């Protein structure tokens, strides 16, 4: 393990933690503009977080340790996930220790504990949110694994760093399987990060909320951590998409020249993905919960088609 690797790794995690709220702010800004409203500043999410941190935590009497432990766990898993994904460089000390399957498992752990915490207090909304979340998860996870397997098959590795390197070497351009996997991935990102048409991050209507319902009982710094983790999750998924399907600009060696360039590329790609996200969100209406099976079924279908076309056409 070399020194520069550790520095890059740290830099990447710090970037994730630091930039995630700005990205959420960026998405909100774009959304306001696209709907013809005046937007809040790019830094509003930071202020929100700061405000929440300064408030007291209100705990229900029957809250168990799970309820208190969950926010830290979620925050931790997302940071860990961010450490694996090659955002700036493929030469990360952590990346050989974990592959994409671990990544999916990390998100699954976070989701599991969020669902438990939702039910912990025993209010109706928390339970409802948890049950919905688990239903969605049961459909989204196979699709996500399928999409990831397709990408792994095409690039002959499950390690993210390896995949990026293979794509760099120019062996896998213009492959139908990757196109299908990408379409599936987009649908899954919308689901996993709770965006329209699956969930609406801005709603607090009883009947429609999913993620918000589970964390309704949280307050103060706990809520701040969860919100922050959600922002980071969005950022992580965008970075993952960029690494899997558009890895250009990621440095393969850690030199002082390539890293700043990689940083600029990262900002550009993430910014662009925010634009795409907003376009999708404004173009679609939120779906009824029971139509989600069809939505996620399509994601699974795309991923499977990707895998099949890998065998059939390549």
């Amino acid at each position: 393990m070399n020194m520069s690797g550790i520095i890059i790794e740290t830099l990447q995690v710090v970037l994730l933690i630091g930039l995630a709220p700005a990205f959420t702010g960026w998405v909100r800004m774009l959304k306001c503009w696209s709907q013809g409203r005046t937007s809040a500043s790019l830094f509003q999410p930071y202020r929100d977080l700061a405000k929440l941190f300064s408030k007291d935590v209100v705990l229900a009497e029957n809250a168990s340790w799970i309820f208190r432990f969950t926010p830290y766990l979620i925050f931790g898993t997302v940071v860990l996930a961010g450490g694996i994904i090659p955002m700036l460089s493929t030469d990360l000390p952590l990346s050989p220790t974990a592959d994409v399957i671990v990544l999916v498992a990390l998100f699954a752990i976070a989701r599991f504990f969020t669902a438990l915490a939702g039910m912990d207090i025993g209010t109706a909304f928390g339970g409802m949110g948890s049950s919905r979340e688990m239903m969605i998860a049961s459909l989204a996870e196979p699709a996500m694994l399928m999409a990831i397997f397709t990408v792994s098959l095409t690039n002959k590795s499950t390690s993210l760093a390896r995949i990026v390197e293979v794509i760099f070497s120019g062996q896998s351009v213009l492959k139908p399987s990757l196109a299908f996997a990408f379409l599936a991935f987009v649908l899954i990102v919308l689901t996993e990060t709770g965006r329209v048409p699956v969930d609406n991050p801005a709603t607090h209507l009883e009947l429609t909320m999913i993620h918000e319902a589970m964390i309704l009982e949280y307050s103060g710094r706990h809520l701040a951590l969860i919100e922050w983790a959600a922002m980071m999750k969005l950022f992580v998924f965008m970075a993952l998409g960029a690494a899997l399907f558009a890895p250009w600009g990621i440095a393969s060696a850690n030199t002082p020249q390539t890293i700043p360039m990689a940083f600029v590329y990262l900002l550009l790609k993430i910014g662009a993905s925010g634009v795409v996200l907003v376009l999708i969100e404004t173009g679609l209406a939120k779906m009824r919960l029971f139509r989600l099976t069809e939505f996620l079924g399509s994601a699974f279908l795309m991923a499977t088609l990707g895998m099949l076309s890998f065998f059939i056409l390549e």
Partner: protein
Amino acid sequence: MDLQTAAQINSFLAAFVLLTAFGMLVQKRIYSLIHLFTWQGLFLSVNTAIVGYVAGRHHLYISSILTLSLKVILLPYILHALIVRLKIRKEVETVVNIPMTMLIGIALVIFSYYLTAPVREISTLITRSTLAVALATVMIGLLMMITRKHAVTQIIGFLAMENGLFFAATSATYGMPLVVELGVALDILIAAFIFGIFFFHIHTTFDSLDVEHMARLKEED
């Protein structure tokens, strides 16, 4: 354009044809169905032209133009006009169990892959791998005709099957001889007029194009 690129474009278009086939399988709105069908025709037409160029079979250009005029322009136009005339613009079909249909569709793709294995082994054409997709398109069209209960949808399924057959001819053999291609196109044209007449007959007789209403001829009467 070298062979490698052509093969890649070919498989990409094959993937899109398959995607539109699946899209049609689960699409409920008749308008969107026709759009998907038009796209599928367009992909086929472009694919045929590219194969014709790379393989140096110039009669494929004629097939390509034929596909373009028939399946991208004429048939969608006829269907469109019929829908407007019969005022079934807004009819939305209830499709049974979409995820299940999708899974069956996937199974059909795998089945086609295994079925066409002997051809793939013998063939030396660059398009050989797309034959499985072509057969899958035929099968999915068939599945669509079984699962749907609307006359227009069934016809679109039928035409999608026909697309699959055309695709199969292109990918297995670089297209059938021109006589056959022309004859098949003529048959489709006649079929188009016939189903057009049928839509009117069914509509005036049953007040709907839902073929569920047509269930008088059963064994136990």
